[in-house]
């Protein structure tokens, strides 16, 4: 079994992919909610029942062919920082991290599959792919689903489909979402209109960490809301179409900005580069917003192209728990802000060396 440290040392396979395709749509995720027939849902089950579910599921999940040499842990064995790191990597949910007794997490080596035991449902199968690849992500998640069918009796109803703890997930139990980087639509003040349009189509838009989170770094998640009454394919087709449209609007908005307001665009990108290369103290919110501008600069060929990948890595690694994990200890917010600024400068150094070295004796 893979250790926690090894899991973190390796960037997920979907974090490393970069091309034209990932310029707007960073990742696509599909999660399937499944429950065991006749067993109380985790939120209502007794501790003993939750334990029994975890034990029986965890060993079955570990022995799946795609999960060999993966990461598998009972969440109560991990400390709060480790759990927070997994949340930041989208490998477990915030809810699961908070209520970890009898919960488990099984992740494959490439981190493309994350199986959560006793979250809101007994089992959540999540697949992550880079760029707009919702159908591929579904295929991956569904293959796990089918592999388990022989040994696990899932709760299904001929009329209602898969039965879930919350009726909002009923039917397919499928939530598909993509993470989009939309600085062009934000800078051109079109984002409000686009988000409204997406909502009108019955799709949900959220910030970086799902429900109830604000948008940071111009990152938005678009997902389906309805899970009952349509086939998986119909849901995925509609989402793929809408997300593809939004990505095209974003590209158009960027091109328009460069033509109509080049000074403003370069000002924002330049300021971001200045702040990130010289700052000594930077909060996670400020970092995300500047990294977003820097990434835009790289996508527009105003900044070196390799910065796209570096920015995406920094999006992840400058988050509080990742930062503390790399420091090897718990840090107060002030200390984190200093370490974050330092980490960003180090990562940007080869592509954006500062004109003047102001470090002196400090580092």
């Amino acid at each position, binding site marked *: 079994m893979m250790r926690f440290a090894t899991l973190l040392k390796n960037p997920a396979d979907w974090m490393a992919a970069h091309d034209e395709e990932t310029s707007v749509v960073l990742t696509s995720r599909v999660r399937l909610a499944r429950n065991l027939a006749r067993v109380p849902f985790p939120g209502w089950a007794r501790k003993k029942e939750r334990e029994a579910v975890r034990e029986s599921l965890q060993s079955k999940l570990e022995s799946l062919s795609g999960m060999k040499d993966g990461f598998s842990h009972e969440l109560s064995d991990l400390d709060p920082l480790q759990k927070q790191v997994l949340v930041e990597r989208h490998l477990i949910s915030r809810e699961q991290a908070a209520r970890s007794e009898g919960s488990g997490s099984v992740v494959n080596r490439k981190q493309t599959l994350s199986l959560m035991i006793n979250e809101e449902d007994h089992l959540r199968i999540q697949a992550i792919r880079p760029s707009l690849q919702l159908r591929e992500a579904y295929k991956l998640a569904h293959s796990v689903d089918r592999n388990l069918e022989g040994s696990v009796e*899932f709760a*299904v109803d001929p009329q*209602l489909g898969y039965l879930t703890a*919350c009726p909002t997930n*009923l*039917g397919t139990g499928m939530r598909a979402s993509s993470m989009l980087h939309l600085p062009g639509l934000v800078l051109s003040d079109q984002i409000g209109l686009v988000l409204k349009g997406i909502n009108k189509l019955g799709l949900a838009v959220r910030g970086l960490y799902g429900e109830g989170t604000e948008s940071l770094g111009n990152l938005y998640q678009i997902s389906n809301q309805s899970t*009952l009454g349509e086939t998986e394919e119909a849901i995925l087709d509609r989402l793929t179409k809408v997300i593809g449209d939004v990505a095209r609007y974003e590209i158009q908005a960027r091109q328009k900005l460069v033509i109509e307001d080049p000074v403003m665009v370069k000002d924002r990108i330049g300021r971001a580069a200045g702040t990130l290369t010289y700052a000594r103290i930077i909060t996670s919110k400020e970092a995300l917003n500047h990294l977003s501008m820097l990434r835009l600069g790289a996508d527009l060929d105003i900044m070196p192209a390799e910065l796209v990948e570096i920015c995406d890595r920094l999006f992840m690694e400058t988050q509080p728990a990742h930062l503390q994990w790399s420091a090897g200890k718990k840090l107060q917010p002030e200390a984190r802000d200093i370490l974050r600024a330092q980490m960003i400068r180090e990562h940007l150094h080869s592509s954006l060396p500062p004109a003047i070295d102001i470090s002196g004796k400090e580092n």
Partner: protein
Amino acid sequence: MFYTQVADGKLKKFVLCEACAQAKGITNPEGLLMAEELLGDAPQKTETTELAAFEPQDKCDGCGFTLENFRKVGRLGCPDCYRTFAQEINQRLPTMHKGLSHTGYIPEGLIKQQALRHELSNLTRQLETAVLEENYEEAAKIRDCIEELEKGEKAILS
């Protein structure tokens, strides 16, 4: 829709799509009885006993979760709660979803297995009634049906 008829110790199974079921009027209890008349000898009383389970109930037999709990948290206690609180849930579904019935992937084997289990528990109840009424001829027929179904269940499971 799965529809099973037991007559003369023989089992007849019908699988009707929703539209057909609606056309034949098999979506409501009275319609169901009507359909049985249309299809031949109706098994007595089974549907009415079955329907008792669908009457509004404020506590789930399976897990003890209450209707009040559901109203408070919007989540359910166990998969069986979907039956117990069907009325309340059905009222809410239109605001959550595009449709009211699942059209996506479903593990066929599992559905068949569940339908079989459902029929078995119906037949067991019928058998008890027949024995109580000392209707041994009927009881024997039902027993044969049960045996046949159990064989079928084993075939699905193996």
